[in-house]
């Protein structure tokens, strides 16, 4: 009944751009979990774009005003969201951080050193993909890195992971450029980079949308299958390319499970469990063999 | 104050072999001309003779290609309007340059808004504006927005603007084209007062009678050349016309009473323009030239715009050839064979940045196109025909209208409606800024159209013109028709007394809510 409905605890889920398939599947996972669980009301909010820090903070403020019981937040900026998180905690709301870890230094300064983070290690994921590429190419392989939005935290971490793998695997990074997570831009970028660096052997793209554009660029240049590509996110559209061998590997972060995990963690805390720090969620390297 | 020191030379301005070229046009050809200090000097000449170009050189809008200009004996070549204003030269341009969304007062004093502590001193602004408006006889609130004014009011406003600051030389480029006798008389009064203060006035007009009334010396230009400068008392209209046109003109107004008046072609019943208190009824017949006279703001423009569907109407019925038609926008009117030549050519009549031919053919593109494709040659030849008929002075039919002289632009507006071949022609101030010779051509054209069975309604502020060419004149006064005079009953006194009729109990309605918005 309506009364019972009212008494149900409310969970605010603050996400990044739902336009991004990854977050969309995450939201769907959370909704599915909420429907199955049935003990709480889920209010998911996404931004129009990933750089929209301002709107995300507004959403946080609105949740605080509404006095929701639990906020799960995937910050668009690891530093910028610390202040509203602190405000929410002060207002007595349980907050769990997921997907992108809030900045340690900023958290420490805000006195939130132990804030719970449920999420994958983006750097680790990128490292796995880069490593796979390094293994395939062997020492001395020449690669591009196609970055995400400059300034975005997961873009930075993925780049760091790729670089680490390249260093350890002895790969030579010819150039590292951004394509702002965009298919068309990645396509144009790589097409042009192929002109100036025809000797490239591998390309690491910070997400699968860009990997799609990269593959098309290679197709057009007649190099698909010859130049190895790795991506990130394991979106459905990339899977066929992985199977066809046009993409060497991608990374699955299990988005649907992640948000549900985060909510579960929050309720555990509300029941009195003392949790703190990073509760890592899995990242998995996906290659053709995984998709057979 | 203007310095009248002894050392000053007698000629305030001197053109010495001044030449100005535009592509394909020699606008001024080695003009030598001296303007005496403190005189009222008139410039006359056909459309495109170079009058406006000559004065624009003084105002820093153009720079002469050859020759020199002396101002008080010193070389003068202003590079900007600011420089000209600093040098004490003011002009009322042939085309308006107003700020429609600003108030009347701000427009008048725009050059130098009164300030106090960095802020606009509105109290003083409105007070001073009130005085300026009274001077030119414009009875509107200084707080009204300019966009609500009619063309004649704007003209007076332009004059008030030019008077707002002291100047040595005041140039008036066709200031009376839309004014009626009372305003014109008032303007002449102002000119006389300025003259008494030692201001030199350069005056341009196509109304020849005026020139004798106001001017002391008259300079005639033809095809960019100075023909002659003569004292007004030595001149006569026939002589002036001969100098301007190069040949004698016969009668000034052609009238052929023998051509018959036919059936009713247009009837208007109780037509009330939106937001106005009065409704108007009248009828127009085939073969008839019907005039509409009235004072400035008497509501003629309002009426014809409402009739044409350019503005909304409160109520009223319109009959074409006896059957009622619904006209809600100009397109309906044009489809029913009615056309309107608007009084404001710059804002409503022309597409300045396009060619003559594009402007002319826009009223009936079907005639120069086939299956939606423009027929280049048809368009050019049709335009060329009209250009020849109306004697439009342009290097080619491809010339941009913006580059034509004011009078020639007006002719393009006339041409565009002739091109449409409408049955009912409503012309609002059709001869505004058109020279005598060309006027004659246009009158004859109107006559030919009337003879061919069309109905023609002419709104004009030029009484002699209406009396010269019309079968019948409707007199408007404060939005009502107060006179319907047959040709036999035409007299200046009768028309004027009818025109004043509705104003006798107090002054014309004048407040910020007035106006038709056809700014």
């Amino acid at each position, binding site marked *: 009944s309506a009364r019972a409905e009212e008494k149900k605890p409310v969970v605010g889920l603050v996400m990044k751009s*739902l336009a991004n398939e990854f977050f969309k599947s995450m939201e769907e996972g959370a909704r599915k979990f909420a429907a199955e669980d049935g003990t709480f009301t889920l209010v*998911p*909010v*996404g931004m129009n*774009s990933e*750089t929209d*820090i*301002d709107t995300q*903070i*507004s*959403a946080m*403020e*609105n949740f605080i*005003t*509404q006095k929701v019981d639990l906020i799960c937040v995937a910050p668009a*900026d690891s*530093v*910028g969201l*610390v*202040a509203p998180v602190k405000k929410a905690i002060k207002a007595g709301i349980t907050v769990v951080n997921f997907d992108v870890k809030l900045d340690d*230094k900023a958290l420490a*300064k805000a006195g939130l050193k132990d804030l719970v983070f449920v999420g994958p290690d983006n750097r680790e994921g990128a490292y796995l993909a880069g490593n796979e590429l390094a293994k395939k190419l062997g020492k001395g392989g020449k690669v591009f890195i196609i970055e995400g*939005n*400059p*300034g*975005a935290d997961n873009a*930075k971490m993925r780049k760091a992971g790729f670089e680490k793998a390249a260093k350890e695997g002895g790969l030579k990074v010819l150039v590292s450029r951004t394509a702002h997570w965009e298919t068309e831009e990645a396509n144009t970028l790589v097409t042009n980079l192929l002109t100036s660096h025809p000797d490239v052997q591998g390309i690491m793209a910070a997400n699968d949308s860009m990997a799609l554009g990269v593959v098309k660029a290679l197709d057009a240049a007649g190099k698909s299958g010859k130049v190895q590509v790795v991506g990130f996110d394991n979106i459905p559209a990339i899977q066929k390319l992985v199977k066809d061998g046009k993409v060497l590997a991608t990374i699955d972060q299990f988005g649907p499970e992640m948000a549900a995990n985060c909510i579960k963690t929050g309720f555990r805390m509300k029941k009195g469990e003392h949790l703190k720090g990073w509760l890592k969620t899995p990242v998995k390297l996906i290659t053709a063999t995984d998709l057979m | 104050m203007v310095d009248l020191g002894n050392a000053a030379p007698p000629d305030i301005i001197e053109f010495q072999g001044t030449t100005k070229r535009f592509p394909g046009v020699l606008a001024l050809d080695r003009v030598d001309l001296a303007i005496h200090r403190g005189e009222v000097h008139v410039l006359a000449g056909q459309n495109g003779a170079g009058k406006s170009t000559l004065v624009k050189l003084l105002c820093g809008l153009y720079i002469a290609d050859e020759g020199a200009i002396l101002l008080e004996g010193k070389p003068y070549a202003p590079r900007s*309007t*600011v420089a000209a*204003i*600093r040098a004490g030269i003011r002009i009322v341009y042939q085309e308006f*340059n*107003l*700020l*429609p*969304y*600003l*108030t009347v007062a*701000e427009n008048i004093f*725009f*050059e130098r*808004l009164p300030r106090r502590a*960095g*802020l*606009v001193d*509105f109290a003083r*602004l409105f007070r001073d504006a009130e005085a300026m408006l009274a001077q030119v006889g414009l009875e509107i*609130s200084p*707080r009204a927005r300019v966009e*609500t004014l009619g063309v004649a009011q704007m003209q007076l406003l332009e004059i008030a603007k030019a008077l707002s600051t002291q100047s040595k030389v005041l140039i008036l480029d066709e200031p009376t084209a839309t004014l009626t006798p009372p305003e014109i008389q008032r303007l002449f009064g102002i000119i006389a007062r300025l003259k008494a203060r030692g201001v030199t006035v350069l005056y341009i007009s196509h109304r020849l009678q005026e020139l004798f009334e106001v001017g002391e010396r008259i300079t005639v230009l033809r095809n960019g050349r100075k023909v002659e400068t003569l004292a007004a008392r030595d001149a006569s209209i026939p002589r002036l016309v001969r100098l301007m046109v190069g040949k004698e003109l016969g009668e000034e107004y052609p009238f052929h009473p023998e051509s018959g008046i036919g059936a009713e072609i247009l009837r208007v019943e109780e037509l009330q323009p*939106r*937001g106005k208190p009065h409704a108007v009824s009248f009828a127009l017949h085939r073969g008839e030239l019907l005039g509409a006279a009235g004072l400035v703001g008497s509501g003629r423009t309002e009426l014809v715009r409402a009739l044409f569907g*350019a*503005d*909304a109407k409160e109520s009223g019925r319109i009959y074409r050839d006896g059957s009622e038609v619904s006209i809600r926008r100009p397109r309906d009117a044009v489809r029913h064979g009615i056309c309107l030549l608007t009084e404001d050519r710059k*804002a409503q009549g022309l597409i300045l940045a396009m060619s003559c031919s594009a402007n002319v053919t826009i009223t009936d593109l079907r005639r120069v196109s086939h299956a939606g494709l423009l027929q280049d040659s048809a368009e050019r030849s049709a335009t060329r025909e009209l250009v020849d008929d109306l004697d439009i002075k342009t290097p080619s039919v491809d010339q941009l209208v913006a580059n034509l002289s004011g009078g020639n632009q007006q002719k393009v507006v006339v041409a565009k409606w002739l091109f449409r071949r409408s049955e009912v022609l409503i012309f609002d101030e059709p001869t505004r800024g058109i020279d005598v010779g060309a006027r004659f051509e246009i009158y004859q054209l109107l006559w030919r159209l009337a003879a061919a069975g069309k109905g023609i309604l002419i709104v004009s502020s030029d009484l002699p013109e209406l009396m010269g060419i019309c079968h019948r004149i409707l007199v408007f006064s404060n939005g009502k028709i107060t006179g319907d005079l047959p040709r036999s009953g035409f007299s200046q006194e009768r028309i004027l007394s009818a025109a004043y009729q509705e104003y006798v109990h107090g002054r014309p309605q004048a407040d*910020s*809510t007035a106006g038709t*918005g056809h*700014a």
Partner: protein
Amino acid sequence: MRVKQILYLLLREAGIGLALILMVIAFSAAAPRFASMANVTNILTQISINTVISVGMTFVILLGGIDLSVGSVLALATIVGGMIITNENLSPGTAILLSVLGSALTGCLCGVFNGVVCERWKIHSFIVTLGMLNIARGAALQISNSRTISEFPDAFNDVGAATIFGVPVIFLIALAVVLAGRFILARTVFGRMIYAIGNNEEAVRLSGHDPSVYKVVAFIVCGGMVGVAAIIYMMRLNIASPILGVGFELNAIAAVVIGGTSMSGGKGSMIGTLLGASIMGVLNNGLLLLGMGDFARQMVTGLIIVVAVIIDKYRAQAFLRSSYELAPAPPREEPHLRDTGPGPRV
């Protein structure tokens, strides 16, 4: 201000105000917590930045120009301000002061570029500010090395969080900016020039004024406002980032246009701009509280922006009680108000 004048003012602004009021009523009915004090505080906080930017944008749009660079310049100004304020060699007081100056100056300098290039070469501001959009963004990323800057002095951050009787201090700053803008437009020679140039630049030139000067100043004012907005941003969010502000230009322009300012210049008002920014803020907040899905929210936002402007149009028509839309330039028969300056809606 006399009662009659206030009444007129209300009526005159009613159009878009009406849309706002309707919206507030609807949300209050539908979303339980919408009308709470705390939520009003949130909304006021959330509209502050857009309001300040929109004030600057109003100047530029009144001239018939446009400034697409505000979002990027905002980012650049926060970076400059952020780098100064986190400089450890400065005492907090000095750091704050210099940072505020630095942000404002950055904004002004970008405005100088925009204005001067537009006027020197007579290029439409669309293209110049599009250039600036890229330049400023690139510069912000370059000098910050694409890192977010944080850890500002507490004294500074506290201002962003402070409220007075529930009204956020940063909103008061924004309100002060609006009122100052209104005063400038209505009462100063500069303000009248802005309107005049937007009306008919040619006529202004023929009157012996140099429109370029005023236009450049308007761009500088706009840049300066963006600088102020940058400071408010830093106070509110306690970060400076090279990637913030993407798309802010559209929000600001929307606020200005919803507020009744004409895109072709010459007509408009600051109060309208404030109302426009409020509509955008209320819409955002209300739809979120309704718990509407993100995609539906985006669609509804788009629709309501259009509907709000349509309501404004209907009001104008009803108020004039005539079908002047048929007339070329609908004469607005607004009673003249002395205290708002003689011109168009201010």
